[in-house]
């Protein structure tokens, strides 16, 4: 079932957009749902979020942030006119479409992509939505789109310092997110906080929100393989029960999530992911001038 790439755009900070022909998904997808993409015969199945879609024309737009082998290989090797091998979905449950009142929807780094369709829909049904994007400069994922779609869009950018590794970036991300959220919670009244991003950052922001007692929802991103409820890789403990994020989520009440467990589980394959990326980079170098 090949899915043609209709357009591809590369923006700042390793941000790549793909407009993909996938009518079965376009017809059904709701904000909060995701798809599983497989791009290469020896490739993995990765969850991505449709940002926009057209039910009549049958396409969806996916945005990736290049950080591992698969996203890099997609950015390097796929051209408009090529095909993704698989786009399965839509998967997961739609975000609850209710009138909450005033919502703070936070996206950490590429998590903002997933916030977009949800925040937009919340605003459309009469909520007052503020979105907050915390990310290293110059990442401005979807800035114009957000400005058009919600009441207020805040970008909390930070400059990368020479010599920083992933750890330093993560620490700065958490520091910025926490201080900006604190400021917003202190100065205004909120009915709901929503967050998408790396588990460690989600946890740190939750610790702040908890002090104010504001209801909070989080879309979780544990590792997934099939994403149809079959493998259990994405299991999370919520309210003391084991849930599968793929079919019970991805959205959960942040107050009930076992955050430490989630943080530990999402990091489990990091050394192997690094090995895959390094092997790929070596292959690229080996090819010399070809690239």
């Amino acid at each position, binding site marked *: *079932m090949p899915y043609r790439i209709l357009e591809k755009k590369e923006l700042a900070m390793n941000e790549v957009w793909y407009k993909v022909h996938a009518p*079965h998904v376009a017809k*059904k997808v709701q904000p909060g749902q995701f798809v599983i993409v497989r791009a290469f015969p020896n490739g*993995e199945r990765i969850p991505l979020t449709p940002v926009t879609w057209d039910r009549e024309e049958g396409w969806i737009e996916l945005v990736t942030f290049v950080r591992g082998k698969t996203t890099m290989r997609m950015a390097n090797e796929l051209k408009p006119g090529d095909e993704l091998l*698989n786009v*399965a979905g839509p998967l997961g449950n739609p975000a609850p479409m209710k009138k909450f009142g005033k919502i703070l929807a936070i996206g950490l780094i590429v998590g903002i992509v997933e916030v977009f369709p949800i925040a937009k829909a919340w605003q459309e049904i009469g909520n007052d939505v503020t979105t907050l994007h915390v990310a290293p400069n110059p990442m401005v994922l979807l800035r114009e789109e957000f400005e058009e779609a919600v009441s207020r869009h805040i970008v909390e950018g930070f400059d990368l310092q020479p010599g920083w590794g992933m750890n330093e970036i993560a620490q700065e991300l958490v520091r910025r997110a926490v201080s900006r959220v604190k400021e917003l919670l202190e100065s205004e009244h909120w009915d709901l906080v929503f967050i998408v991003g790396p588990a460690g950052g989600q946890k740190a922001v939750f610790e702040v929100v908890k002090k104010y007692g504001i209801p909070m929802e989080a879309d979780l991103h544990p590792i997934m393989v099939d994403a149809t409820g079959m493998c259990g890789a994405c299991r999370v403990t919520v309210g003391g029960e084991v849930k599968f994020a793929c079919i019970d989520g991805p959205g959960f009440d942040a107050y009930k999530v076992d955050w430490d467990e989630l943080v530990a589980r999402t990091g*489990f394959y990091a050394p*192997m992911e690094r090995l895959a990326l390094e092997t790929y980079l070596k292959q690229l170098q080996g090819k010399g001038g070809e690239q």
Partner: protein
Amino acid sequence: MAVKRKLIKERVPTPERPAEERVKDFAEVNLGYTFELAVREAERCLQCPYDYAPCIKGCPVHINIPGFIGKLLEHRDDPDRAVKEALNVIWACNSLPATTGRVCPQEDQCEMNCVMGKVGDKINIGKLERFVADYAREKGIDEELLFEMVPKIEKKGQRVAIIGAGPAGLTAAGELAKLGYDVTIYEALHEPGGVLMYGIPEFRLPKSVVGSEIEKLRKLGVRILTDHVVGKTVTIEELLQEYDAVFIGSGAGTPRLIDAPGINLNGIYTANEFLTRVNLMKAYRFPEYDTPVYVGRKVIVIGAGNTAMDAARSARRFGAEVTIAYRRGEEDVSARVEEVEHAKEEGIKFEFFLNPVEFIGDENGKVKAVKFEKMKALEERDAGGKKKIAGTGEYVTLEADTVIIAIGKHPNRLIINTPGLKVERGKIVVDENLMTSIPGVFAGGDAIRGEATVILAMGDGRKAAKAIHEYLTKKREENA
């Protein structure tokens, strides 16, 4: 058939790769019969008459076993013809013989009541079935048969949707296509095959074999839509608007977990996840393939069914020291005899009467040991015929850096939430014709059984195809 023959008591063995060689890779363990060996084994068959043959009665899809074995004997001077005619006999009841010949629990089915068993070894029916399928595939004989069959199919002009491309769905699809229906399979994963692809390892059922069985279905005109998750991409109600009947063969895909502290520690896999990474995603070839799997030095597999053996033997192939821990005794192991023997030959240790009560992790949230309660067998037996067990109050802790939970599965949860679909304890309820509470929607395999075997699922697929054919014939006649 009247020829008097000498009884040959001993089975003709099938060549197998030595254990020390095969634990180093994922290539197939059993090499199967050659034509010569197959004929020698076939000669042992007493050729019981069709109405009596206990093997046929023991087969869930009632293959005419003496019939196909007889064809091998009848045309022993012309191997191609012998195989072609034997395959034709098998195909009348079973469209996936290369698979069933490898994975059926023959000792509990066809071979169980084999008359030869009274005087010697039972006939090796499974390996003969596999031989016919493999020889036919290698020589293109199956294609030839299909080629003769396809033009004779009379199109019915009605459409059937099949949910799930596993053993039940593939069988139903094949049968319905042969009857002239326009069949479309909806499959959630990126490859059709279901448990044959993601669950059963390459060394027991090569994926190229499954691929070729599926290719035959395509040649029969079956359309397969991968990446379609019924319940999400499309609902059963929507399918009913487009199709004249629906068959649910969505299997038992939800892994059962152990309700014990530490179950979500890193390094603890469900068998489904472990096997999916290894088989479907080919993690044994990481980093050439992108999906990783973590196999530590010491692996404990919990459970003793076929899935547990598959997981244990797969882990062994990564070089790990593997122990199977089972809460019951050796006599109640539910895996096929051949799998248990292979596992033992490959150096897998078995620990009986151990019931896990806690998973112990290190400071990084990774499993390092499993605490078990020692169990003892009681005289009483449960509904499944297994000895009941009770705790002894004594505990033992075994070290492990990878744990695989293989204690069973529940039916797929996405489908059973369909409005109007009657479900009891997670299983779809069907009548004697395998029709569900929704008219025109049929179901079979693990979706109705909870958890069973490939061949029982295939038996259901066949039975459902027959029932769907009757249902649609009536519909045609009403509309005529």
